[in-house]
């Protein structure tokens, strides 16, 4: 449980710091009134931030799930694969989430 580990003050510091930091990322170039366009090389790096962070975050969760104490679990691996394939095929986040959950429950029911 994260609440026990951090305590209320630290949790609110995380929320506030993330909120303020995110606001300034959003405000940044709008605030400059568009006088200075972002150089092309900077845009090139920014384009890949989300796709650089999220896969690394999710990989250990898929391979070593908490619910099984970190042992790879066939049902969860199948669900992960179906989610990615559904997302690639439909380009639709919602369709991928649905596909992931349906396959997770099917696989849990079949493989246990």
């Amino acid at each position: 449980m994260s609440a026990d580990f951090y305590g209320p003050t630290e949790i609110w510091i995380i929320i506030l710091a993330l909120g303020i930091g995110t606001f300034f990322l959003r405000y940044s170039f709008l605030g400059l009134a568009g006088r200075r366009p972002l150089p092309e090389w900077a845009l090139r790096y920014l384009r890949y931030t989300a796709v650089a962070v999220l896969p690394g975050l999710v990989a250990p969760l898929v391979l070593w799930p908490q619910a099984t104490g970190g042992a790879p679990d066939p049902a969860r691996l199948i669900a992960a694969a179906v989610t990615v394939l559904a997302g690639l095929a439909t380009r639709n986040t919602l369709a991928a989430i649905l596909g992931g959950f349906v396959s997770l429950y099917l696989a849990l029911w079949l493989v246990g």
Partner: protein
Amino acid sequence: MTDRPSLSAAYWRGLRNGLPFMLVIVPFGTLFGVAATEAGLNVAEVMGFSILVIAGASQFTAVQLMNDHTPALLVILTSLAVNLRMAMYSASLAPHLGAAPRWQKALVAYFMIDQSFAVAAQDYERAPQQSLAEKLAYYAGACTPNCPTWYVATLAGALLGAAIPPEFALDFAVPVTFLAMIAPMLRSLPHLVAATVSVVAALAFSFLPSGLGVLVAAVLAMVAGARAETFLTRRAAR
């Protein structure tokens, strides 16, 4: 001066174009409420995330890292890294909205989510001759169905979360949601390169204190994606 009818037309056009995204916001916000509650956060803290941060992917990132007992500073840094793309959104809206008064730009910034940015950028590119007021009205329209929905869906998830039994395997809701966000992002070879480097490096560096490995992997992946793009552009030019 822009007259009122054209402003209200722009507002309703934005609302219509933003409406379909509610289908994503509702389940996504609910899942966040559930995941954050499962991680041990109380309703006020869960709502604090959705109201003050209002950026789904980074909120999921923070909750996941907190679940792993990552030091607070690393939680903040890694979650902010997920939101770096917002600076890119800001840069691309700046030529259209940069002339607005500061308080209006602050509101635009606060409500800047993937969906509001995507429809607004598309609309401004399609009709760049619109007045500033029309562009702002369109933006407000696009935010109307989505941003308040994010708060309500989160609250529903937070209240619901505690009542869902473990058989529903909601522990896996976070990975499924992340994967569902990532897959549609893999729209070019450089994106695929970045994602692959991110996965391999995160697993290779998983011995590092939690959160640090992901951050190192993210930097490597970002560089890999940008370099791959440069390489492919140069090759295509030849």
